């Protein structure tokens, strides 16, 4: 919902629990300042109920720093938010001013804070609406409409079959025609919701990663046709990461997710023996 990790296989982001994701996706894939701020707040919420403004402001600035060069417009958007946050933080650190009246500066600051709050809630609302649209699009895609059109003999009646067709349409049609076609083969695995467990996927990874040393998420999901297979594989990679057996990193903002085996050889051997029968390892 918050991060747009476009380099990952389709659909993975919304399928993975949020808390799991935050561990890996910390490196500047945020679509905007609101996204980033919401992400940082959510992370705080996950860690402890007591939300710390100071920690969030520091994290926001650190994130900004880590993002490296930004175009002027984007940088401005982030800096405006950062300035407001810093002001709020400063205000928090100063001792309470005696007296009950608020001066103009304070009022302005509160207005800014309210505006920011409204913006964050609005952004969050639309991001949730977007996630819902994604689900609706998925559901919609499960039904394919009839588009064969009238039989050839009726078409003789139509005045102009190329009406509205543009040269671009033609180029797209050529790309469709000449693109490699998926093999028309139905496997029954496809019909069963979840057949491959995270355990199976883990074992397969344990079988191949130590020898491979370093690879990418794209490579370990190559040839997978269903979303659920990819998601299961992703969860398995996360599990290895949590156990400290692999390092994960992304070279650039939209780069590949690289996986490096750090567990040594004996670990792989032990884990594999501890598991069930080897799964195509």
């Amino acid at each position, binding site marked *: 919902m918050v991060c*747009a990790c476009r380099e990952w296989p389709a659909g993975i982001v919304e399928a993975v629990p949020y808390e799991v994701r935050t561990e890996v996706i910390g490196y500047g894939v945020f679509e905007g300042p609101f996204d980033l701020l919401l992400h940082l707040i959510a992370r705080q919420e996950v860690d402890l109920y007591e939300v710390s403004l100071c920690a969030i402001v520091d994290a926001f600035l650190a994130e900004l720093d880590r993002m490296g060069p930004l175009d002027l417009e984007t940088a401005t958007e982030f800096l405006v938010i950062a300035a407001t946050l810093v002001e709020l933080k400063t205000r928090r650190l100063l001792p309470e001013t005696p007296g009950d009246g608020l001066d103009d500066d304070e009022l302005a600051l509160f207005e800014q*804070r309210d*505006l920011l709050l409204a913006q964050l809630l609005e952004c969050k*609302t639309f991001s949730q609406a977007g996630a819902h649209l994604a689900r609706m699009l998925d559901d919609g895609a499960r039904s*394919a*409409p009839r588009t064969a059109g009238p039989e050839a003999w009726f078409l003789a009646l139509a005045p102009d079959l190329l009406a509205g067709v543009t040269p671009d349409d033609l180029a797209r049609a050529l790309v469709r025609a000449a693109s490699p076609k998926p093999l028309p083969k139905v496997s029954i695995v496809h019909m069963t919701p979840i057949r491959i467990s995270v355990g199976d996927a883990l074992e397969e990874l344990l079988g191949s990663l130590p020898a491979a040393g370093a690879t990418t998420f794209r490579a370990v999901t190559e040839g997978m046709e269903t979303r659920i297979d990819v998601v299961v594989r992703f969860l398995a990679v996360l599990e290895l990461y949590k156990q400290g057996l692999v390092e994960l990193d992304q070279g650039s903002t939209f780069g590949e997710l690289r996986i490096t085996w750090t567990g040594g050889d004996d670990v792989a051997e032990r884990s594999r023996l501890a598991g069930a029968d080897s799964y195509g390892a």
Partner: protein
Amino acid sequence: MSQRSELTRALEAVLLVAEEPVEPHLLAQLLEVSPSRIDDECAALAVAYEDEERGFVLARVAGGYRLQTHPDLAPYVERFVLDGPPARLSGAALETLAVVAYRQPVSRPQVASVRGVNADAVMRTLAHRGYIEEVGRDPGPGQALLYGTTRLFLEKLGIDSLADLPPLSSFVPAPEMVEAIEKALGGGASSSVDDLGR
């Protein structure tokens, strides 16, 4: 089964050759009955297809009727359709699409202000995919181009009209989330939360 009415049979034939959803008034004109009669016939036919466990369904989509495959059979159909499933939209694109869907007609700067980032590239992608289009110009100063969602958008979602989208209010963050954000920004309750009503 026998003695099916000519109306039902003709309806089935026309829907079979249609390439996009057919509006009831066009069907009514072709089959020389009232649009409400068409609606009744289509509703009955849709129920019959379900009861008969057909591999296809009659759906009401984007203001018209169309035959489409039963969602249960998606695995077979996906394998058959050469294009494969369409590339999915990024989170940014989905968010932008949501803003356009719920706020239309809306200008690019308005979209950008909701998301806090420039939306031009994402909106071009959405227009290229045929999900959004220019629908007019802001009458005010600047005459910004206004965008709205397309008929294709409804077709892809499989809904009849924008009224079938869940209300935006159902996506407003839960009270705990609101509270967390408020706390994060340091301060008590604020009136602006209520402003999000729409």
